[in-house]
């Protein structure tokens, strides 16, 4: 479907555009999704962390990244145990409260809680709710073939929902759009590493996050324009510690937390919304396209606590991320009640200690609203490094 649903930014100054997109990311009514539906489009919601959005895009659907929202889970609370993380509840709340209307939902067995989400979702809605079984053992020689078949299984349902068949031409075009999107996001992260004073941490986050709720062609246009504007932005370089933020792979920290962290230090790399940057290389747009998507997932992907790959020990990957970005320290967080995130902290801290990399350890919850103590702690940590 070729419609522009969010053109408000055109002709606006950069600062206003970035502020508008912050509002859009925080808007729990998801106006871009409503506009898309009003124009007759269908929506596939996919839960964190990674989903091959190219397939839904090729079918003319809007792939919507379901990453929770700043909502009270008044409807969803009763569907989950109190010991479960917040993102599950607020994600379901988005649908139960009618703020977001989907045509299909997909989740992944990234943890026990997420594995059950599609079933809970499916009991409440009549549209297809599926689990995409990503390979548990990515080191198996059969994992690419297995994942390709999973993608094909999913594609069949997507075609049914979209009411069209996905041709190779459709999928190749979509792969091209997403390759461009990933290239632009890499460019954004290069800028964060090389000139972090040009864009605040929360601005960069919002610029990336809107990709999960806009047609990707529109996101590409926006990214190209912003990346073109940023180098000439009047911004004063400040003397700040460079840090890597780790812990935003699934549940997202509140935007205010990102803003508060970003005003005390330069966040030069992170794993926030890592699913949007999961594939590290261009996906070939010729040959067996589903096979190509499966291949890059297994062979050319980032890391997170919910993918287990012996070639990518998470602690070593974090050390590489720190070295690659020239960071001086790490802020390692985990969402409250997030088992994969909390478990990985042990290995992270051990590795950071061994390499004498200063680290600040904390937890967050997407709906937390008081940051004063945490900010003071982080700042004191950073000041002890800066004025050693």
């Amino acid at each position: 479907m070729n419609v522009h649903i969010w053109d408000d930014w055109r002709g606006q100054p950069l600062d206003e555009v970035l502020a508008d997109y912050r509002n859009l990311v925080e808007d729990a009514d998801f106006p871009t999704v409503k506009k898309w539906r009003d124009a007759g489009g269908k929506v596939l919601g996919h839960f964190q962390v990674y989903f091959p959005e190219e397939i839904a895009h090729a079918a003319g659907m809007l792939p919507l990244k379901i990453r929770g929202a700043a909502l009270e889970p008044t409807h969803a609370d009763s569907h989950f145990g109190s010991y479960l993380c917040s993102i599950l509840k607020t994600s379901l709340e988005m649908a139960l409260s009618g703020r977001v209307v989907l045509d299909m939902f997909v989740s992944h067995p990234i943890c026990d809680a997420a594995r059950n989400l599609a079933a809970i979702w499916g009991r409440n809605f009549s549209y297809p709710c599926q689990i995409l079984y990503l390979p548990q053992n990515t080191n198996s020689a059969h994992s690419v073939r297995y994942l390709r078949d999973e993608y094909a299984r999913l594609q069949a349902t997507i075609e049914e929902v979209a009411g069209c068949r996905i041709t190779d031409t459709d999928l190749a075009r979509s792969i091209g759009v997403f390759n461009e999107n990933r290239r632009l996001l890499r460019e954004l992260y290069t800028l964060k590493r090389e000139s972090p004073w040009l864009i605040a941490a929360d601005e960069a986050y919002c610029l990336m996050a809107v990709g999960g709720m806009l047609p990707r062609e529109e996101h590409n246009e926006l990214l190209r324009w912003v990346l073109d504007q940023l180098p000439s932005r009047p911004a004063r370089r400040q003397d700040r510690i460079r840090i890597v933020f780790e812990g935003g792979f699934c549940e997202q920290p509140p935007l205010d937390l990102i803003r508060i962290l970003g005003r005390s230090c330069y966040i030069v790399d992170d794993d926030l919304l890592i699913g949007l940057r999961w594939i590290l290389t261009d996906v070939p747009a010729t040959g067996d396209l589903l096979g190509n998507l499966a291949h890059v997932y297994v062979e050319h992907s980032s890391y997170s606590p919910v993918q287990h790959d012996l070639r990518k020990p998470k602690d070593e990957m974090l050390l590489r991320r720190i070295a690659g970005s020239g960071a001086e320290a790490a802020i390692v967080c985990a969402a409250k009640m997030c088992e994969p995130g909390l478990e990985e902290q042990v290995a992270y801290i051990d590795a950071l200690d061994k390499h004498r990399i200063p680290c600040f350890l904390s937890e967050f919850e997407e709906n937390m609203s008081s940051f004063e103590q945490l900010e003071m702690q982080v700042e004191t940590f950073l000041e002890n490094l800066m004025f050693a």
Partner: protein
Amino acid sequence: MTLTAGIDVGSTYTKGVIVDESGRVLSRDIRPTGFRLGEVARRAFDSCLAAAGLTSADVQYVVTTGIGRHLVDFKDVAVTDLTASARGARLLFPLTHTVLDVGGQTMKASRLDEAGKVRSFRLNDKCAAGTGAFLEKTARYMGYKTEEIGPLLQTSKTPVPISGVCAVFAESEVINHLSIGTPPADIMRGAIESLTDRSVQLMKRVKAEPEFTLTGGILRFPLMADAVRRQLGCEVNVPAGEMVQFVAALGAAILAQRRLVQLRDESSAESAARAVEATS
């Protein structure tokens, strides 16, 4: 001469200090903060520059602190009041291991290590009780201005107990005391004692160790330091005169000096490394 500035944008007053590399204060300024935090910081800085006969180009590094520290666009770096007060207290009293800062709207206790870094800290809860605002409000109820609190306290003979837990309850208590004819000086003294209780509790929670240095606007009233001394059972340091309000700004300016030295050292080390690389 290497000059640096420290600007403490506090909730009630904004303080500015310019120092040289020996830590000597060249000029200082204090003014009510108001609502435009970035602007008041600029005015305090400009006033410091004018008083020392300098221009902004003469100041090599600016560190801001206080509640409005992030809103100052000409800063090089912002630091917490904890770190700034710690460094200021260490400059004035080198054996300081615990700092109690009682400001207009916050109260903070911190314990320092040998290097002067903050190792542990506690803030007051989100409540006016235990802050300068509480004392000002109490004085206002009784028809006194802030600057009259000091002289009023001197006339107290028998302080009355005032709730140290909640400013709202304390307000009711003040009204009750007034209605039964308690002298305002004794009520004010009671409020100071209540503030002291909270301060000492906070210091205990950070496992306070001597020497203790007290800072912040409330310490302008000598009775406050006396009360803390009494409760702790030992001597406390209080910066002389108005300097008690400038400790964080002074610390910020000193941190700026320290940072400049670090940056110069790093730059020299990088140049040396490049030279070695080029000749090898």
